[in-house]
């Protein structure tokens, strides 16, 4: 089943999982310790993140480690970046204009 990356990162627990394993690859047990929810719930989140390739699994001896896939995350983050920047620039200029207009009104 193909998963939607945007849906995957819309969930706060999954974002927290990503932040944790972005800092360091983790075993399922180590990861589950960070959450109050059941291990089952955590592995369900991991399954979704794996299916949309935000997380890779690697067998290391007897243990499985979850790795963060920054490349996939970048695809998501970059998607709207230019559009976002264009509007931020515009609104910055609009802020300046509004400040000027306010100053003029006050001077009346």
């Amino acid at each position, binding site marked *: 089943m193909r998963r*939607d990356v945007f849906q995957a990162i819309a969930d706060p627990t999954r974002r927290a999982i990503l932040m944790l394993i972005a800092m360091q690859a983790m075993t399922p047990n180590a990861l589950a310790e960070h959450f109050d929810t059941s291990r089952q719930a955590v592995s369900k989140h991991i399954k979704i993140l794996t299916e949309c390739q935000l997380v890779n699994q690697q067998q290391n001896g007897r243990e499985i480690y979850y790795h963060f896939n920054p490349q996939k995350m970048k695809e998501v983050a970059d998607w709207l970046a230019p*559009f976002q920047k*264009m509007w931020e620039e515009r609104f910055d200029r609009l802020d300046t*204009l*509004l400040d000027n*207009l306010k100053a003029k009104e006050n001077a009346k």
Partner: protein
Amino acid sequence: MLSKNATKITAEKGKQEFFIEREFEAPRELVFRAFNEPEFLLQWLGPNDMEMRIDKFDSRSGGSYRFVHSLCNGGGEFGFNGVIHEVTAPERIIRTFEFEGLPERGHVSLEFLTMTELPKNRTRLHIQSVFKSVEDRDGLLQSGMEGGLNEGFRKLDELFANSIVNN
């Protein structure tokens, strides 16, 4: 101003619309004027590295507009136009938008601009753009066509990296 208000852009995958939200430290009447008077529009709407020209701006219900952005180095022009469905001062503008640079006509979107009064003389702007297809929407979001040529964006990369750290 101490800190910039955040610009929130929402574009759910597979949908034919996007939303832009931003708050301003100014009363609603002023924000509305900044969107509705040509001399003000010219001061903020044109992308950083482009010059903006207003070909036509008849801002009233039943009116129409045409703006042209041109590259400062003479590299090209990008026109866009639309008809204005409704202007209700100081709270609402509804209009169409069509980018003239596409190979075929008819890829029009519908824009709803809403200004809401907030306490302390602040204003919230909400823009909803609805497209003919998901492809049209994604095309506009990705093209950077308006923002033109990622030159301007690159300049700001560092600035934004800093602002993300500060938030």
